[in-house]
């Protein structure tokens, strides 16, 4: 069966870093949002990944400037042989409503670590961009009642017809022209109908069994959060191994193999952003900072050596921990639950404001823009936090959505570096902010995957300290499709 698959190219190159159960990037947030430069053109790219693989992704490319004439897109693997030979590119269609928006449907034929390369033609010459896309099946589809009834009816009709045809053939097909069937012919026809009926039932039973196997295989291939097994030993948190744990080298993401977000549920009033270290036994360990007792939800981001990001989830009940302050890039935050608001007080007296007008709607790609001012209202000076102007964690209050964002979007930065290397962007840290003083604005390209209440944590660094702004927001339903 493996050869069957390889001949026609359905390469399920997915269990490369993980075990049998395919992991998913983020949680409940499969689409990719990215903002970056294709040569002289600033682009906002949204990759709406298909629910099943192989399937068609929708690629939306919006240019910041109005001088882009044409956009084409092409899928490749992120690394390895499949990253070298692009197929014929798909030309994106310009929107009749928004001339700076280009949209294309793009087949993603394989699961795993892919990329979409975007070529732009415009008044300022050509430009290109590569966006890493982790592709995983999101669900399997049930059959609608109407279609089910229709197909069942047609199946029964065809099954009865084949029995009737065979019975008719046994009764009359061997008779010489003009000869009428005798009683014995009718008897043989009845026997044939019974045998044919039994055979048809057996065939349908086989088909049902085969269908069940395929459906189970498809369901097993649906991307799921990577299950973590947390264990507390004093102040030491151990994220243990399981059959589905990491087996291959990981890429460093901002200098860390893992980014762990711990949030106390259901109040969302405590947050810790930590960076456990992987031991020789593949167990990640972290000395926890002081945290109050409670139940914490854990979200752990890692990136495989092939550039495929995965998010592990778990919950753990913690006692009151007196373990000291966080150090290095680790950070904690505490605060009371808030009402939906656009301003957050930071611990050093500065204020972070979410610049937005109008409601946020599910499925709509946008830039979440934040502005930081000093206590006196003057623009604040920010510092890079792990090489970025900011980090954001988006969590639906029902815990079905978690996304870890950067100013470039929802892509994993090591995957982006691999994608950039493929198109000749040689500075692997081009997307990182390395200089010390940053402007007071930070934006995160994103689209909330579903309506409902969310808590948004935005982390920046000021004067050597990580500051966290927390915002509650209620995302409204997706807008009606435009005619």
């Amino acid at each position, binding site marked *: 069966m493996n050869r069957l698959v390889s001949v*026609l190219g359905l390469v399920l190159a997915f269990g490369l870093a993980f075990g049998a159960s395919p992991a998913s990037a983020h949680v409940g947030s499969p689409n990719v949002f990215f903002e970056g430069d294709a040569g002289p053109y600033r682009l906002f790219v949204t990759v709406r990944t298909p629910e099943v693989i192989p399937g068609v992704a929708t690629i939306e490319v919006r240019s910041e400037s109005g001088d882009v004439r044409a956009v084409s897109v092409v899928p490749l693997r992120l690394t390895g042989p499949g990253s070298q030979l692009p197929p014929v590119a798909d030309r994106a269609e310009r929107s009749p409503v928004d001339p700076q928006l280009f949209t294309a449907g793009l087949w993603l034929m394989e699961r795993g670590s892919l990329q979409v390369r975007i070529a732009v033609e415009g008044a300022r010459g050509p430009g290109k961009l590569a966006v890493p896309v982790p592709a995983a099946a999101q669900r399997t589809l049930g059959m609608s009642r109407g279609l089910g009834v*229709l197909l069942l009816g047609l199946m029964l009709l065809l099954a009865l017809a084949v029995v009737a*045809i065979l019975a008719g053939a046994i009764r009359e097909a061997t008779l010489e022209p003009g000869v009428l069937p005798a009683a014995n012919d009718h008897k043989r026809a009845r026997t044939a109908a019974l045998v044919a009926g039994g055979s048809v039932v057996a065939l349908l039973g086989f088909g049902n069994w085969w269908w069940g196997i395929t459906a189970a295989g498809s369901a097993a291939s649906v991307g799921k959060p990577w299950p973590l097994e947390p264990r507390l030993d004093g102040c030491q948190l151990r994220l243990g191994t399981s059959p589905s744990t990491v087996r291959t080298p990981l890429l460093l993401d901002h200098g860390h193999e893992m980014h762990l977000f711990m949030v106390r549920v259901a109040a969302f009033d405590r947050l810790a952003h930590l960076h456990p270290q992987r031991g020789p036994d593949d167990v990640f360990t972290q000395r926890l900072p002081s945290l109050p007792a409670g139940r914490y939800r854990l979200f752990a981001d890692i990136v495989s050596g092939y550039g495929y990001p995965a998010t592990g989830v778990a919950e753990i009940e913690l006692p009151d921990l007196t373990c000291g302050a966080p150090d290095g890039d680790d950070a904690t935050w505490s605060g009371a639950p808030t009402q939906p608001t656009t301003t957050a007080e930071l611990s050093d007296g500065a204020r972070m404001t979410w610049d937005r007008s109008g409601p946020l709607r599910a499925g709509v790609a946008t830039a979440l823009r934040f502005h930081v001012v000093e206590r006196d209202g003057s623009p604040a000076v920010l510092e890079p936090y792990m090489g970025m102007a900011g980090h954001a964690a988006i969590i639906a209050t029902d815990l079905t959505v978690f996304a870890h964002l950067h100013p470039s979007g929802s892509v994993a930065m090591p995957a982006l570096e691999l994608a950039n290397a493929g198109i000749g962007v040689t500075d692997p840290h081009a997307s990182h902010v390395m200089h010390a003083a940053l402007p007071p604005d930070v934006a995160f390209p994103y689209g909330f995957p579903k309506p409902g209440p969310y808590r948004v944590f935005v982390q920046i660094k000021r004067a050597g300290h990580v500051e966290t702004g927390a915002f509650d927001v209620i995302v409204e339903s997706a807008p009606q499709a435009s005619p």
Partner: protein
Amino acid sequence: MTPDDGGDRVEPSRVPWFAWAAAAAMTCIVVGLYWDISFHLTVGRDSFWTPAHLLIQAGGILGGLSGSSLIVSTTLRRASPLRDRSIGVWGFRGPFGAFVSTWGAATMVVSAPFDDWWHSAYGLDVTVLSPPHTVLLLGILGVATGGVFSVLAALNRTTGALRSRLQWILLAVGAEVLVLAMTMIFEYTYRDSLHRSDCYRALSIVAPLVIVGFAQASGARWAATMTAAGYTAFMLVMLWVFPLVPAEPKLGPVYQPITHYVPLGFPLLVIAPAIVIDLVRARISGWRRGSQAIVIGGVFLAVMVAVEWPFGSFLQTEASRNWMFGTHYLPYSMRPEDYAARNEFVPQSSARLWRGMAEALVAAIVTSWIGLSIAGAMRKVRR
């Protein structure tokens, strides 16, 4: 076409139109199917409206319309020349083959929404054998079988020059059925599998049934050879013509550089066992059917392995990477590390090989017996 072409109170002196329609329908289907698989290996991107799909559908429509028009004219016209050469099904009357063709065409139509839903539920399938594709193949087999029985009924009622012409048409359709059957097992008989028992087990399941069935049913002396020769010629023409047509992959990731259509590969050497079967069956025609099946099945597998195993070794060598043998044509989606891309055989343990070969022998004997049995019934069909 005119309704009375189908038959006469006296048997017609020329080939009935529905025999030509059956051959044309099968030609559309097998060419369309080959083209479709090659399209998947080369271009990748699929839609309902690809030329290959339209050719398959045209074959189905031709077979279905041919069958249903015969049923309608035979049912409604009491004076229809086929009236007394028809069977009755649910109040309708028509030749047996016409009912089977119509059923096949209807099944092909039903497979379309099923396949469409399947893609949306589980993703685009890129294998030949999936449940909805199997429904489509059952439909195609229905059209094919209906065509075969339409020709057979006319053949069995006829003597003289017309019988000889109908025999040729039957063998041509038989060759196309063999192409269809071999295409269904294409994934098990690829170049990297020619030293595995699965290849010979798959071959033993389909090939003796078709070759022996058509050989016995036609009654021609070299019928098995001609059926296999038809398959071989078809595959060779496709192998040599398809790479002349420029094409590029439209799906990624792409692992192999592609500039032209990728054919399905060099034909399997079924012609060799077919020749031996023709030589043998003339000598054992008086034996009991079970004994004949043991000999024919055994001969089929032994000769098949004897020729294909060493030929498979040749196909992995540099000498075969040319237009004639075509082993350098690789699907765009074949990874460089795949066995076929490395010109190696997929390994198999000796124990599995011998067990598989034993299963292949049993399969060859059983399908030979079924082929002989069906042929016996096929020769009796008059309607």
